[in-house]
């Protein structure tokens, strides 16, 4: 679809082209006296108009405490949507549902996937790695420990890089996840480089993915201040920035470590 000229469309209420939409919002205005109510509804209509909803109708308004009013508004959007101008951010891997991630590991790897996690160096902030690994998870998604086909070893904070390399070898880790929160004097970048160096000298490189053990585990780094485009420069396989969810990480791991499932039926 991308690149083709698409039609111009409007929201659909009950008639093609009617442009009707609904929205709800709260304004910090009182809704007590008759005058206050009139002002509140007028304020809501003004906001709707500025959002491109004209004409608009306040179908519900309710005071919440002495200082706030909640509104439900219906209106006609004056905006047009040009489908040819829609751009879709291309991700190098699809984000999969948990069940499919487990299935891909089972069928593609034929054994459990071993994931090692740690905060390295002096960084004691485990919030990031715990959000990705703990069952508790993050942003409504369970962490990697929740995936039946993954074995997660969380080494916690202030792990020495040499120790991490040794544990990765001992556990036959498929992937090593390191989070770095502390950024004073670019500590996060130095940490990532130290990680890459230690693994390139501490373990033999290369090897096939899939059913075979890789010589070196996949190196994944994450933290709120990382630039995701710097992976190659830092010598790691992947960088995740702020707002990454556990399922994105899990999807990346299966995408990279397990072969694509054979195309079914009539093909892709």
């Amino acid at each position, binding site marked *: 679809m991308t690149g083709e000229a698409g039609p111009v469309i409007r929201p659909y209420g009950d008639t093609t082209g009617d442009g009707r939409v609904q929205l*709800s*919002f*709260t304004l910090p205005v009182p809704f007590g006296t008759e005058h206050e109510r009139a002002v509140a509804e007028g304020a809501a209509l003004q906001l709707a108009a500025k959002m491109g909803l004209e004409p608009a109708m306040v179908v519900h308004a*309710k005071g*919440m*405490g002495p200082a*706030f009013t*909640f509104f439900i508004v219906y209106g006609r959007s004056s905006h047009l949507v040009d489908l040819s101008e829609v751009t879709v951010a291309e991700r190098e891997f699809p984000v999969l549902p948990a069940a499919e991630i487990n299935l891909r590991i089972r069928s593609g790897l034929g054994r459990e996937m071993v994931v090692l996690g740690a905060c390295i160096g002096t960084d004691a902030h*485990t*919030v990031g790695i*715990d*959000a990705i690994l*703990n*069952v*508790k998870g993050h942003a*409504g998604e*369970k962490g990697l*420990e*929740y995936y*039946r086909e993954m074995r997660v070893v*969380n080494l*916690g904070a202030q792990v020495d890089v040499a120790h991490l390399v040794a544990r990765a070898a001992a556990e036959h880790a498929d992937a090593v996840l390191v989070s770095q929160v502390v950024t004073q004097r670019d500590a996060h970048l130095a940490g990532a480089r130290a990680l890459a160096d230690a693994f390139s000298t501490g373990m033999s490189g290369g090897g096939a993915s899939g059913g075979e053990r890789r010589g070196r585990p996949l190196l994944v780094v994450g933290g709120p201040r990382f630039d995701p485009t710097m992976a190659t420069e830092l010598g790691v396989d992947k960088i995740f920035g702020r707002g990454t969810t556990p399922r994105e990480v899990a999807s990346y791991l299966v995408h990279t470590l397990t072969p694509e499932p054979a195309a079914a039926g009539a093909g892709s």
Partner: protein
Amino acid sequence: MVRAARDLARIAGQPIVDMARSHSTVSVERAVLRLAGLDGADEGGMPWVNRLVDAVRETTGLEHGVALPAWDALVTGGYPSLSALARDAAAGAVKFRLPEGADAAAARAAAHAALARGFAAVDTRRAQREAIIGETSDPPKPWIYLIVATGDIYEDIPQAQAAAREGADIIAVIRSTGQSLLDYVPEGATREGFAGTYATRENFRLMRAALDQTSRELGRYVRLTNYASGLCMPEIAALAGLERLDMMLNDCMYGIIFRDINPRRTFIDQRFSRQIHARAGIIINTGEDNYLTTADAVDAAHTVVVSQLLNEFFGTEAGLADWQLGLGHAFEINPEVPDSFLLELAHAQLVRELFPDAPLKYMPPTKHMTGNVFGGYLLDAFFNLAGVMTEQSILLIGMMTEGIHTPFLSDRDLALENVRYVARAAGRLGENFRPPAGGFVQQRAQQVLAEAVDLLRRIGADGLLNAIADGTFGITRRPADAGRGLDGVFQRADGYFNPAAEFLEGQES
């Protein structure tokens, strides 16, 4: 069958109690110092209780408890306070020893006197709660439970007061993500947190004071809840007792499963923390609802009942009365499942009948809240209906934007409108429509109970720690020798002395 289930829970739980009675932890020892009045932190923010316990641990060890060496040093060193002692100890300027004879007796007496003052303060807080409830009123059940979580205590306070005015009977201040993994309790009023606000003594005090004001304004006592879970269960329990919190999440299974906290550590911590809650008149909330966010709510329904029976045993053993056992469960069955509402009713009714005097905590749907806020609002209404029909005591109010963002002001208002409508329209539905004998609902309840009895029997045979290691709860495997905090566990030596335990085991009051 119910009696058999309770007997089996006792058999399964007793080895854990025996372990807790023969061991202690760094957090138990720090809680003793907190109850004795040691507050504050060093320049780096590390609490003095940590510094003092660490210093004792490095010299005499903790096998005899922190109290004997600490109060011996206090008495013989002529220190005016525990904090003065802690400062010197942190600087390496105190030589601790295990006193004997008359010296030991003097140290014990001094420790005993300090803890007597601490428990007097806890008892005063408890009496204060009764007094304020008397002068305002105790709201009828179900109590409406709402959450605030801005990260900034000074932002939380007006939100909590607004929520109380909108109808909340209980305010829970969600903790900052990851506080359960800190092996110390932060100090002071805090203004930043990750998706929650740190549990500190000062934050507890500020919020309780604000809610007292609101309680008087509304003529209705508004309860305050926080979380005694994680690596500092006993310490947070002590602070909750000292600052008159009213309910505490207290269930070490949550820490084990969701935070990979070592099972031994946290079961030992849990017992002591529950003893403190018992003394403080605090209602605990347990976290069985959490299992259903990872496991399937139909397949794993019996694990909730098993855990509730175990929590009842552990809680009662620690001195909690039935009215303090806020056992948890949840409305988490996939709405696509046929008869899902009937299954929910069966589960909720079973729990109500098993624990007739417990203030059951019923949690709203989270797992099947898809982002369709309209569908979610409907699901929350059904949750409210199940809650009022089966007379649940504490209803955590579901937000239609669950899983999207922390609730908007309007989300909370709509949620309260939802529960008020259901309670008004159908509050007496339960007494008017009983499930027919031998019908689907009753059969399902019987089936869940039978599965729970089977599982309890297996746990009794294999040991609870092994069951947890095998992933029985929340389908997560947690071996007894792994996880965080195991290095803070030690076996009690002969002559172990805990001056707080003397008050809590009921030998003194």
